[in-house]
């Protein structure tokens, strides 16, 4: 892995297609104002994507990188395109649209500079994740997103992915039940549910705890003031008290940095909260594929049965048509012949469809499972790293605390 961009903890496979060739970063963020789709004035943020061929950097010539500005909605468009085009991939998530799990000092405002900064880092992380994905990194739309400022949107729409997206979306949102669910995928989906639930809970409690911790540290600042006032009415005790007060002020001030670092940990957890969603999406798409296969197979079976009944004259399954023909008299041999022929064609087509869908399903399962395994390894690695850096953060906080209180103790002992 390597340190890339602003987010030091992204473990990215060296030597995968795109990153082998170019360096990618989201270097800056800027506010813009302009007219939106309904011709109203709006303020929005744009992010500067910089790319540079890897060779140039290693040669040491360091040319000016290519760059273009994109706004969050364009990132969303890119991601939606990837979701539809690579349904078997666990597509990396975008940083959150709106600030959630905030504790009181953090702003929930999208225009807040801290939020924008964290979003910038998150967007860079997203690009690096896609660029290191074995399937997604070689996508042409992705490449042009990074390199072609104008006309990119049109190019995406030209792929016609929207239509596919709409129909898929409709199908996915509908409730359907698969008769023989694939155990592995069912388990994966369940895992995704549990992961999402537990990380949400973790983030919520952590935010509340951060709030409380802030309070603890800040109140100690009051000691600084009262020790100062008290030292004014003392003789020998005065100096010790005064200096101790300064240390209490320092202690109170130290919490801001501590919690800023912790926010970074929260962002790492958030990425996997959203990744859980991406994982569940793959499982659902598999379910849909399987469902469509089952529907096609079911349809074929019923058509075959109809043919048999027509051929042998027996009615095995109840059908209103059959009943009416019984009630109103048998059809003519010519009518029967025509029907049989139609059924034969339908059965042929049906068998083709089943073959197709079966192949689709198998293909999907194969590709999806490869990516799921890849994702699993990535997740285990990344989360372990996140926990390690969290522990290191806590250690640093404890050491700072010990130092401040030792300093204060020294002052007190000189009182």
């Amino acid at each position: 892995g390597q340190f890339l961009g602003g987010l030091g903890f992204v473990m990215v496979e060296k030597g995968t297609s795109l990153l082998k060739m170019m360096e990618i970063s989201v270097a800056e963020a800027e506010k813009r104002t302009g007219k939106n789709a309904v011709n109203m004035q709006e303020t929005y943020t744009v992010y500067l994507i910089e790319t540079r061929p890897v060779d140039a950097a290693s040669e040491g010539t360091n040319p000016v990188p290519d760059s273009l500005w994109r706004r969050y909605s364009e990132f969303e468009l890119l991601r939606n395109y990837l979701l539809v085009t690579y349904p078997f991939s666990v597509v990396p998530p975008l940083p959150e649209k709106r600030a959630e799990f905030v504790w009181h000092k953090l702003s929930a405002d999208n225009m807040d500079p801290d939020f924008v900064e964290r979003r910038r880092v998150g967007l860079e992380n997203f690009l690096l994740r896609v660029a290191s994905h074995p399937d997604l990194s070689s996508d042409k739309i992705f490449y042009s997103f990074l390199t072609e400022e104008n006309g990119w949107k049109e190019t995406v729409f030209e792929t016609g992915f929207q239509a596919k997206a709409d129909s898929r979306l409709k199908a996915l949102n509908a409730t359907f039940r698969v008769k023989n669910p694939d155990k592995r995928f069912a388990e994966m989906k369940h895992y995704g549910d549990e992961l999402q639930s537990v990380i949400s809970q973790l983030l919520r409690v952590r935010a509340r705890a951060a709030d409380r911790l802030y309070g603890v540290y800040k109140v100690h600042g009051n000691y600084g003031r009262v020790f100062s006032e008290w030292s004014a009415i003392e003789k020998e005790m005065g100096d010790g008290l005064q200096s101790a007060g300064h240390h209490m002020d320092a202690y109170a001030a130290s919490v801001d940095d501590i919690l800023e670092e912790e926010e970074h940990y929260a962002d790492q957890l958030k990425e996997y909260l959203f990744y859980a969603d991406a994982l569940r999406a793959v499982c659902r798409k598999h379910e849909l594929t399987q469902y469509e296969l089952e529907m096609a197979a079911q349809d074929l079976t019923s058509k075959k049965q109809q043919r048999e009944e027509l051929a042998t004259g027996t009615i095995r399954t109840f059908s209103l048509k059959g009943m009416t023909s019984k009630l109103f008299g048998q059809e003519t041999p010519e009518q029967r012949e025509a029907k049989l022929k139609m059924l034969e064609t339908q059965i042929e087509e049906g068998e083709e469809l089943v073959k197709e869908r079966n192949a689709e399903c198998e293909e999907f399962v194969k590709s999806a499972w490869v990516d799921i395994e890849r994702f699993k390894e990535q997740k285990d690695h990344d989360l372990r790293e996140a926990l390690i850096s969290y522990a290191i953060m806590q250690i640093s906080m404890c050491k700072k605390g010990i130092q401040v209180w030792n300093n204060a103790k020294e002052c007190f002992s000189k009182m």
Partner: protein
Amino acid sequence: MSAMSAGAPRSLASSGQKSIQDILHPLSAEESALNPGSAAEKDLILPNGTPVDTSSPASSSSLLNRLQLDDDLDGETRDLFVTVDDPKKHVSTMETYITYRVCTKTTRTEFDLPEYSVRRRYQDFDWLRNKLEESQPTHLIPPLPEKFVMKGVVDRFSEEFVETRRKALDKFLKRVADHPVLSFNEHFNAFLSAKDLNKRQGLALLTKMGESVKYVTGGYKLRARPVEFAAMGDYLDLFTQKLGTIDRIAQRIIKEQSEFLMELREYGPVYSSWSSFEEDLHDPLEGVSGCVSNCSSALEELTEDMSEDFLPVLREYVLYIESMKNVLKKRDQVQAEYETKLEAVVFREDKKTPVPTDVEKCQDRVECFNADLKADWDRWENNKRQDFRQLLTGMADKNIQYYEKCLAAWESLIPVLQDKQEAEGETS
């Protein structure tokens, strides 16, 4: 304030310009009783630097006051040692209470035996303090730990509470024992030596005291408090304010810490439930959960300690200062009485006004009181400095210990978190 402090010990009195015969013997009583605020007083200094108390023998143990050395010196010069230890619970049909063992070792002749060991309960200490306040109104009596404890918040029989109380009672007795005047008090003697402390004994002893110290408190108007005592009063007012503020801050911190603790107690277990459906990450997540749990326990200890050790001491001081202000008021009263009577004598027009000897007695009282109070004030300042140094370093220590416990927990977690990686490194 500078006028009141004992300051650095003054250099030995040398014969200097005066001939040896002209230098007054330290133990001789100065014949300046009739002159208020005798300037000669200030010139008399004992070899160890303490000023001579030239008040008349009628004041409490002034003789011994001159002989008593500074209590900052080593215990070699002490002749009375007192300790409080061995708390025990007593259960009777009526009540449950704790007694403490009070051990005394002494060479003083005021005591029949050289050693004593008696058992006393808090009530007895409280009785002693009240008696001391009554019988030695010109002195500052050291504070006792608070009598009442909040129901449901503090367990009166918990080890920590009993130990905190024991330490405070021990400090109280030691301070009385080190006091040049209070340590010779009959009630103190009874407290240390009587097998069965009969509180009615106190009354009998009191009537034996004779000329002692029923100061009139009432009705006389003081013109102006002398500067040094006014400064004491002002200081006490400001100091009380600061202590109140510190108390509020400490309480607020404890509250915030308790709420933080509540969140931690919910936070840790989430990692545990997460670990239950992970394979590779099971141990790291479980480890984090355990770590958070350890930090929670450490925090709980910190808040408990602050509640039990820190806050009570602050509150004792506030009560203590109240009693000190009362002593100042009494002093004012004594001075007011004297000034009123003196005025009456000076502008005497008829025979009804007080006889000069009555005025003399008043002057005596004023001077005794002032001297006792000044000496005690210096002692109090030293003790206060010690007490707060101890209290605040204690607070710093508790916080250091808390962070050290957390540090140890997180440091021990790192190898658990890195474990798999090392294994992977070896196999790859």
